[in-house]
């Protein structure tokens, strides 16, 4: 049965080393950083592409962010997502309430235009602000069932059987579509974009909507770096044979 799938992603800085902040402590200093989406969202994109390959239908990627977030939309299209929607902001941060409301507005506008989604996917949490709630809020407003933290999805006959990991094993659930699922890395192993995929994505049109900002009630004052305790490293050795020194450490820590 063909399906319409929507994947929501967020443009975030590709941090790896130590984070540094802008002088006003409002943002991460991104002068030397690239941008990406979270690993969870990469898996959501891959899953959407696979679903359409298997079941037919169409896939759409959506983001709320500045004009530059077009890059992340094109990255998703290079992997096989067909359409892209940018909810264009002036670059300031939107809190989870405002973000969810803007996404709901876009989904409802799509529905009014004759495109309703069988499945809306999010990452379990964004890589940067990590509010753990946008997907749940979107589901709540649209009155759809929602399962978070998914690591396996099977679609069959208008239902989704999902699985997620717990400390002691797994939990499973089955929901009727339409539904909202938030997923975690490990759901699949995302493919790399092909060169033809990249070229095709470059030419595609991005649909743009200007969303309505609202005060969601969680308002950033400033960012700060956690205090790092003074730290000393003991070098056990360089190259050569350090087996005995390491065994001594294991014995000191009572591991041997």
């Amino acid at each position: 049965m063909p399906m319409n799938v929507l994947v929501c992603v967020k443009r975030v800085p590709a941090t790896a080393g130590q984070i540094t902040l802008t002088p006003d402590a409002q943002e991460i200093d991104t002068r030397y950083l690239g941008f990406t989406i979270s690993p969870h969202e990469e898996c959501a994109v891959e899953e959407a592409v696979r679903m359409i390959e298997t079941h037919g239908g169409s896939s759409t990627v959506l983001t709320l962010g500045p004009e530059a977030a077009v890059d992340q939309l094109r990255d998703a299209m290079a992997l096989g997502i067909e359409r892209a929607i940018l909810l264009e902001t002036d670059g300031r941060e939107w809190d989870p309430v405002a973000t969810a409301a803007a996404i709901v507005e876009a989904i409802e506008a799509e529905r009014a235009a004759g495109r309703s989604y069988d499945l809306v996917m999010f990452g379990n949490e964004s890589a940067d602000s990590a509010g753990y709630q946008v997907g749940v809020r979107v589901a709540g407003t649209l009155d759809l069932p929602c399962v978070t933290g998914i690591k396996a999805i099977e679609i069959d006959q208008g239902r989704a059987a999902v699985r997620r990991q717990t400390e002691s094993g797994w939990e499973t659930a089955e929901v009727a579509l339409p539904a909202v699922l938030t997923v975690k890395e490990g759901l699949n192993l995302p493919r790399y974009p092909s060169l033809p995929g990249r070229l095709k994505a470059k030419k595609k049109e991005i649909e743009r909507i200007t969303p309505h900002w609202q005060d969601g009630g969680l308002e950033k004052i400033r960012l700060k770096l956690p205090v790092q305790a003074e730290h000393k490293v003991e070098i056990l050795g360089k190259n050569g044979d350090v087996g005995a020194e390491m065994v001594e450490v294991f014995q000191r820590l009572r591991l041997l």
Partner: protein
Amino acid sequence: MILAFIEQVDGAPTLLSLEVLTMAARLARNMDVPLDAVAIGPNGAAARGILTSYRVGTLHLADDLRLAAYAPAAWAHTIAELADRINAKVVIGTASDRGGEVMAHLAARMTLPLAANCTEIVPGDAFIVTRQRWGGSLLEEAHLKGRVKLLTLAPHALTAEASPNRTEVATQTFAPVLDDKDFRVRLIPQVEADSGKISLAQARVVIGGGRGVGSAEGFATLEELADLLGGAVGCSRVVTSLGWRPHADQVGQTGTRIAPDLYIACGISGAIQHMVGCRAAKHILAINTDPTAPIVKQADYAVIGDVQKVLSAVNAEIRRAKSGHERMVTEAPAG
């Protein structure tokens, strides 16, 4: 009134729930308001004993058999109804997978903001909270508004502290009016058969491998060291993306958080997303060819060198030490 949503297993509140109670009791003292708790699911009443050490006035228990199974929307509906009834000004829960999920549903249902993974909470008309971003690599100070303040507490933001002065805890059972719709999602647990393998999250020693291990086959030396020390093997995100190891082995922000006595990081550079996953390790030993790698600076012990050469040497040394020990035992005179 402050309402703490506690999670419990067979009547014993989880460690994260005790941390929530500790924070909630402090808030209640600061704001000069009473503290109540709510437990949902089987055996909730058994949690009462422990709550006597956390200034809890009343433990609320939901009376609806359908709540025995975990249904996030139904649990949130239950808490929303109770929060209304007791006129709660704050609802606080854990940031566990389940706690965070229920609190997000609660926020959606009550159309209120939610501050997730808080480490500090300063009450006021608007609360000033400090919350974790980037898995804790960055903190945000924020204003939290709303007629009821909804928060989850980051794991281990404080130490759970039972008060020496025990107080009486009343229990009250209530019957929430739930819709069938609240039960559209029910999670059925599947306990995995014990594979005999030590789990990453529980292991006392974790041997983690990164790109510097060289190949999927290169993990054999890590497996060998894990066997010798009774530990588990983990890996960095690069290794998972290369397909060398399954995602279940990944340590980090989007993988498993580990808390071993010793983490041996082999050929791992130490991206912040990886360090978030091993921050709770008591000691870190880094093996890396690059003495300037971020992980070396954050480690307690470091060996500068090639992973395979270093591990082959240490594995041989452990085997030698072990066989020497056995020889001594077998050669010890009887009696």
